[in-house]
């Protein structure tokens, strides 16, 4: 058998074959394939399983010191240009591959239970396979261009999956928002890639870094241009990894089925951005100012996510903002020049966040039996409570997840988060402080979620509250929902296919932190042996302990407040805080007003602009070219148009302005002789 590292290109190919086969089946023999859903799901799980086996074999080879493999072929050429494609397998890639295949497999098993009654079962599995395939392809990409290709494919799959329940308006909007916001980032990424190619004639990560540092020291390209290119490329990860201010799509993406949320939030999609920044470390490490920007964006995101999560009442949204916040930590690590710490947190976070999301799915699945298939009700924590007794596996694993993410030793989250905070303390003490504060907030809101959902008494039968919530959500209730309302079920634990992944993920959530002990970090040894050696030698308990104690103390404080407020109910936060600082409370529960700004400024703005341009097109351009415009201009209608059409007039000016640019920047020759 060949070395797995040599055949790593097969890893994305297997799920792709599976997805293509079942996709073709859906188009050609729709009914038959929907009737044999188990065959499809088992088949697709096996395809991903084969990829997982190869991935783990490759990981072990890399751990045992097998060399990195890179193979390329010419994909497109013209003149002297060639664009190579191919695959690369190195330690970073092997870690990510193992992670992605594992999470995907578990999510697929889980989906078998979660989507059991959905008529789109086969379609869902097809998308899942395609999604994982794109993500694996992204990981084995040897250059920026190929990354961009898979980057877009990942975005497309998320579009398909978030909009999976296409009869829901919310899902339709969320899917589109996810795609478009990501395209805003891709706009920068594409320009950045093109610019870097112009500057260095290469798409390769290391060669770009070499080429840029060479050009900057030779003064062949100005420093501002290099910085701009680095920043443009960073826009891509900002959108994909939901960094402020491009994070707005991620909480909305909750409209997709919960297994997808787990996959998006843990191993695919959002991980892609962090991964790309890690890949580009050779480039970013040249420019401290870019590092600073990355760290700053990370810190803002980290704080913002946690602060919004404080007030969320929707279980899934709460978790979503928690992901935003944790992604901020990872980005902070990247900015501190500690990609290993960032990737380590990515891995640990993937385990417990996947588990938490799958757990919330299990809760929603149970809630739907009582309140009906209405996300506004099934996901609202005001209707939950007391689920621990009915759902032992779900609640136990959820609790483990909460402890892990709060950073209580010795669970996974403590080690990775502390690694990041330690690095931040050295590089940017101010950011360390914000990170520390956020750690406390994290512990608070996570345990708030836990207590509200699993402890206390069950509130789901409260019809009045249900009605209130429905009215508050401004959904016009039609009869359909009323009917669903009537089905009276009771809360019960989910089937094995759903609890198994939860229990399985609980294990790494507890122990995977030991892979990255600061004095003997296995993950650092794999990813960056030299750095790991230095770090291990420099390790001193004296330095480690104060920081570790600080973060444990603040996390415990958060947990205790949550315990007091939501479990024993000794303190009433709404009296203590919300009523005293109503503006802050409003600010937080309106998500910093970012969604509103987005809606008003960009969505409505672009619509308005488009309408104006269309008006110009049909009235002015068409008219003038038809020569009828001259007539209308003379008539009253023309006058009216120019009186009221100021905006259109501006659009015309802009239009003319573009053409004016020729005169300014033009060719080398300004004039025709």
């Amino acid at each position, binding site marked *: 058998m060949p070395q797995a590292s040599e055949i790593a290109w097969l890893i994305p190919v297997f799920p792709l074959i599976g997805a293509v086969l079942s996709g073709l089946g859906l188009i050609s023999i729709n009914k038959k394939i929907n009737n044999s859903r188990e065959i499809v799901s088992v088949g697709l799980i096996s395809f991903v399983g084969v990829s997982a086996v190869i991935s783990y074999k490759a990981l072990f080879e890399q751990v045992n010191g097998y060399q990195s493999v890179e193979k390329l072929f010419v994909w497109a*050429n013209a003149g002297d240009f060639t664009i190579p494609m191919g695959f690369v397998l190195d330690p970073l890639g092997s870690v990510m591959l193992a992670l992605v295949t594992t999470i995907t497999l578990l999510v697929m098993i889980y989906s078998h239970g979660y989507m059991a009654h959905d008529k789109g079962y086969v379609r869902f599995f097809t998308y899942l396979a395609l999604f994982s395939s794109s993500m694996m392809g992204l990981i084995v990409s040897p250059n920026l261009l190929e990354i961009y290709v898979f980057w877009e494919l990942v975005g497309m799959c998320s579009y398909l999956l978030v909009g999976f329940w296409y009869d829901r308006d919310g899902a339709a909007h969320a899917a589109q928002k996810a795609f478009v916001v990501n395209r805003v980032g891709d706009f920068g990424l594409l320009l950045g890639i093109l610019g870097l190619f*112009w500057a260095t004639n290469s798409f390769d990560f290391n060669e770009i870094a070499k080429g840029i540092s060479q050009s900057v020291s030779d003064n062949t390209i100005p420093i501002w241009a290099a910085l701009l290119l680095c920043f443009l490329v960073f826009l891509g990860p900002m959108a994909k990894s939901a960094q402020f201010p491009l994070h707005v799509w991620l909480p909305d993406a909750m409209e997709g089925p919960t297994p997808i949320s787990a996959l998006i939030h843990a191993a695919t999609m959002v991980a892609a951005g962090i991964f790309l920044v890690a890949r580009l470390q050779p480039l970013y490490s040249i420019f401290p100012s870019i590092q600073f920007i990355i760290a700053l964006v990370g810190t803002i995101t980290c704080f913002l996510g946690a602060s919004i999560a404080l007030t969320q009442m929707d279980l899934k949204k709460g978790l979503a903002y928690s992901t935003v916040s944790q992604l901020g930590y990872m980005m902070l690590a990247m900015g501190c020049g500690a990609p290993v710490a960032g990737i380590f947190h990515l891995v640990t976070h993937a385990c417990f966040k996947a588990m938490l999301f799958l757990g919330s799915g299990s809760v929603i699945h149970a809630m739907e039996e009582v309140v009906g298939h209405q996300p506004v009700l099934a996901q609202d924590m005001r209707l939950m409570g007391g689920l621990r007794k009915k759902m032992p596996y779900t609640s136990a694993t959820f609790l483990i997840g909460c402890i892990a993410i709060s950073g209580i030793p010795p669970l996974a989250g403590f080690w990775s988060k502390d690694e990041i905070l330690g690095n931040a303390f050295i590089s940017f003490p101010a950011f360390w402080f914000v990170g520390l504060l956020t750690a406390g907030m994290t512990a608070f809101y996570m345990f708030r979620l836990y207590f509200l959902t699993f402890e206390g008494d069950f509130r789901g039968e409260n019809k009045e509250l249900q009605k209130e919530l429905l009215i508050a959500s401004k959904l016009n209730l039609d009869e359909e929902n009323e009917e669903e309302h009537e089905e009276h079920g009771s809360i019960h634990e989910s089937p094995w296919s759903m609890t198994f992944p939860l229990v399985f993920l609980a294990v790494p959530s507890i122990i995977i932190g030991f892979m990255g002990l600061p004095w003997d970090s296995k993950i650092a040894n794999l990813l960056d042996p030299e750095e790991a050696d230095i770090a291990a030698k420099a390790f001193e308990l004296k330095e480690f302990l104060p920081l570790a104690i600080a973060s444990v103390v603040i996390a415990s404080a958060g947990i205790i407040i949550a315990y007091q407020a939501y479990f024993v109910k000794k303190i009433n936060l709404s009296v203590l805080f919300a009523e005293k600082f109503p503006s802050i409370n409003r600010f937080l529960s309106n998500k910093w007003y970012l969604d509103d700004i987005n809606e008003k400024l960009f969505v409505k703005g672009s*619509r308005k602009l488009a309408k104006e341009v269309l008006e110009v097109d049909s009235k002015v351009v068409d008219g003038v070219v038809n020569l009828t415009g001259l007539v209308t201009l003379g008539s009253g209608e023309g006058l009216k148009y120019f009186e009221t059409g100021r905006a259109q007039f501006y659009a015309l000016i802009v239009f003319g302005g573009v053409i004016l*640019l020729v005169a300014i920047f*033009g*060719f080398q020759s*300004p004039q025709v002789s």
Partner: protein
Amino acid sequence: MLGTLGAGLSNFPWLSASILFPIGSAFVIPFFPDKGDGKEVRWFALSIALITFLITVGSYINGFDINNENVQLKENISWLPDLGLTWSVGADGMSMPLILLTSFITALAVLAAWPVKFKSKLFFFLILVMDGGQIAVFAVQDMLLFFLTWELELIPVYLLLAIWGGKNRQYAATKFIIYTAGSSIFILLAALAMGFYGTEIPNFEFSHLAAQDFSQKFQILCYVGLLIAFGVKLPIVPLHTWLPDAHGEATAPVHMLLAGILLKMGGYALLRFNAQLLPIAHAQFAPLLIVLGVVNIIYAALTSFAQRNLKRKIAYSSISHMGFVLIGIGSFSSLGTSGAMLQMVSHGLIGASLFFLVGATYDRTKTLKLDEMSGVGQKMRIMFALWTACSLASLALPGMSGFVSELMVFTGFVTDEVYTLPFRVVMASLAAIGVILTPIYLLSMLREIFFGKENPKLIEERKLIDAEPREVYIIACLLLPIIGIGLYPRLVTESYIASINNLVDRDLTAVKNAVKTNIFSGAKTNEILKAPTI
């Protein structure tokens, strides 16, 4: 045995056959019986279109050498020697892919026209005539002949628009003919001027014209005229307003031909005449092409977003995509120009598929207004899937052809040392805004048609049946090359890259000469001369 057969095949007049065979066969159609539902005519037209496609494939396989940048498959017959008119056809790398595209899309359009029952004999007659006529446009090697084919080809399109179509079809058809015929006067003028340039006996052959040393002023005059003529066809904003009307009224098969092939005539002609025959003027006007390309991309994307009529929306999206062709042609790099070629092929396939789907959807919903649709996806799932696939192709998703061509244009333009850095930065950034705008209007469109709650009125009044096998087959035929090119673009680019390299070399020489003769500002001379040979 096989050897002699091979030699015989390469001497076969492939191109004349592919032009004359469909036209000749079309004249059989009037002899079909009038009664019945026109089944025989449909099958006849389909087989003729398929045979034509096979002939063009045969010409590519047997008589075309992709490593040769010159015109091949040449046939020269003196026609009217007094006028200097010769039947001169041939194909180089720029013609060949478009000839194949034409015969391919036409065959699919015939299949798409299966439900046409009204005057079906005349309809298929016109489609077959158009097939030959369009191949002729791409294959002729004589400028006067080019003008004639360009004009003749308008007649079937006019009739197809005027007889079959929506309520405003007369208006749309008239507008189309006035715009195109009116502007093509410039082609005739330019052809006459160039053919008579410096000689007593006119000669309109491309090879002759290419060897001519036109003066700069002469080139500029011809260039401006031709730019207007071809700008209407491509179309270039602001000469585009005939297109939404024509496309908005056409039936689906005609629509496929309009978007798939007709628009490509403009791009092809810009390459063939403006860039190839008038290099000195091209060196002057190329920046304008870039700017116009950027305007096309953004302007048409915005108008498309605001459109509430499905057909017009897609029509405007075509205009937006043609902007990349303009940038590619103006880029002076083989990568960019090659991207322009690929964009034409790619949009031919994607545009045809989207317009076919518009037609198929209209057959069911009987409305094109987005406000009257909603939640259609629940009844028409396969249709939804096909729409999604084609829309993703259109928004340049990697793995599909549109992405590769746009990427080639971008990369070619950005790495091109002929233009100043600020110009490139500004233009590339503006063009990249299209990357954001395109998904906005396409995904909004999908959302409004297929997502959400079902529109009760629509469900009640119309029977929404899902896609039938014929429709799936047509889209599959179009998606296969779209994905094929997306995965391995050299499938297509290899066929024309030699010719494009040749063309770009010629244009670059013109730019450099312009520098030497100090037309370009002297200060920047060095920078241009040390530009890497692309």
